């Protein structure tokens, strides 16, 4: 088991290393000059001022140093938690900007991932029982997974927000409120949270339901099921076993889907102007704020890596085979 986790951690470590390296490389090796494009946004008239700013940013990027020095400095700054200064919200450090946004993204992602996973699996297993249910649920599931996150978000915002007027469609709380622990504020928070959550939940739910339905059908073909049936075991028991075994690949699937789910959350936030990381990314792109963009990228990668590790731990807890097989006692 130690070996198993050791391997996983090695992969995650390497992934982080690769992510940081990509982050470092892209501004330096992509066509185009990030400093010039930042300056072009600055709208400064005097050429001397432009030159001064250019010198400042060049020094910040460290473009005048040899490449290997630039790379080491980059890591050094990173390890100190220094991701640079945001241009959009000058002069706030990027780290601060991101930390302010992270709770909103997590508040959307965690509940939608976990709830859609549990509900989707239950529902998929249930659908596999009856043919009519299967035939009616399956198409709906496929439509849901095929829906682009932002489109469902737009539809919900339009139908429930604009047309029906039930839910607000922008921001995380009312414009007239200040963050506090009052009932009013929490209520407004929940109201603003619901639609983005619902769109994330629905798309992911369809995917899990279909995945589970297919896994269950596959499991019901397994030898142990045939044996149980030959001994007259009731379907109740058989289904319980099949569900339990089919859930294992779904846990792996959760790890594989993390990237897609995060991407979904980002575009959903953009639709609802929800002040999470997705909103930051949009602002960073529109304001050519490369420090912010890169910082957000690193934060997301770290988050995904941590989530992957949590899923690995969960898998080992659920599947006895990894414990016995990899524990070295067999």
């Amino acid at each position: 088991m130690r070996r198993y986790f050791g391997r996983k951690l090695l992969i995650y470590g390497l992934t982080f290393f690769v992510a940081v390296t990509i982050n470092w490389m892209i501004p330096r090796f992509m066509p185009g000059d990030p400093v010039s494009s930042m300056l072009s946004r600055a709208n400064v008239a005097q050429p001397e001022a432009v030159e001064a700013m250019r010198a400042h940013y060049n020094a910040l990027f460290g473009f005048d140093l040899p490449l290997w020095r630039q790379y080491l400095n980059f890591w050094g700054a990173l390890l100190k938690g220094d991701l640079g200064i945001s241009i959009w919200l000058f002069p706030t450090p990027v780290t601060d900007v991101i930390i302010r946004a992270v709770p909103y993204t997590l508040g959307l992602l965690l509940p939608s991932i976990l709830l859609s996973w549990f509900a989707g699996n239950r529902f998929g297993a249930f659908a596999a029982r009856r043919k009519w249910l299967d035939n009616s649920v399956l198409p709906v599931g496929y439509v849901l997974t095929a829906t682009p996150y932002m489109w469902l978000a737009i539809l919900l915002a339009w139908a429930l927000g604009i047309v029906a007027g039930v839910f607000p469609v922008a921001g995380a709380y009312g414009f007239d409120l200040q963050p506090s622990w009052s009932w009013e504020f929490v209520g407004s928070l929940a109201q603003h949270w619901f639609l983005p959550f619902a769109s994330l939940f629905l798309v992911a739910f369809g995917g899990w339901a279909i995945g589970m339905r297919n896994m269950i059908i596959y499991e019901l073909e397994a030898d142990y099921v045939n044996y149980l049936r030959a001994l007259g075991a009731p379907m109740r028991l058989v289904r319980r076993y099949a569900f339990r075994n089919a859930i294992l690949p779904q846990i792996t699937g959760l790890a594989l889907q993390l990237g897609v789910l995060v991407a979904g959350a980002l575009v959903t936030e953009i639709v609802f102007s929800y002040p999470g990381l997705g909103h930051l990314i949009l602002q960073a792109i529109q304001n050519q704020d490369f420090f912010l963009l890169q910082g957000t990228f690193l934060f997301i990668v770290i988050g995904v890596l941590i989530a992957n590790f949590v899923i690995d731990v969960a898998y080992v807890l659920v599947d006895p085979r990894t414990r016995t097989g990899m524990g070295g006692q067999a």
Partner: protein
Amino acid sequence: MSEASPEAQPRTPTARREALHFALRNRKLVVGTIIIGVFLVAAVFGPMTIDHKPTDYVGPPMTPPSSEFWFGTTTFGQDVFAQFLYGLRSTFLVGALGGVLAAAVGMVVGFVAGYRGGWVDELLNMLTNIVLVLPALVVLLIVNAYLGVRSIGVQALFIGLTSWPWAARAIRAQTFSLRSRDFVDLARLSGVRTPKIILREIAPNMSSYLFLTFILLFGSAILIAASLDFIGLGPTDSVSLGLMLNNAARWSALQLGMWWWFIPPGAGITAIVGALYVMNVGLDEVFNPKLREM
């Protein structure tokens, strides 16, 4: 291939005939194929029926669907239907290019890792896992943000380069199990070299599987591209369904109640990707005799 036996009657393999039999009777496959076919025809021939550029200002702004402008017009008086047809074209293009590239990388990595095994496998496996863990869209955001000029080709290129890992994994597993089949050994005993064995012995056995993989990659490339477009990192030189959504959101189509602007592009993407997924299941049922009974 059977030059040794020209006198023997070349029979259609029953397996292939069975597959066809099931294919025509599989509702999922038939429905999925028809939907894809209709959209594909619209994407290929539709733009030819339109005599102006999709971005031209051809009509009065903000008109709901009418007999003249089937899908209405935008805030600026652009023809939404024309944009939709051109957008379909981009969508299919990005899906096909991205899907083909991802499938190609996935196949090379999967075949080599699965066939060679040993340290080559270890190394490729590690690479696959790293790319797999990295959230593709976020990497694409970073890359695209630095690109001043963005085209569909470049978009597809980067999508292909980031979305191959799960395909590589699946193909590796298949190759690994096929490699131990005796006909591979027999080919080696016949003096056939490794690349030829992979190409002519192993790959044909997974052709259905490879096709399914490609369909899924096709679908996911379309979805990723749509997300990129929506964030504002779409192609700078053409129209796409994702960009239409981006424009609709940016110019407050929601608040203005211009449903004809944002419903067609999203519905188009959903229909195409959904049809691809349903086709995939249908094909799986056709190829996999175990599922036929369901």
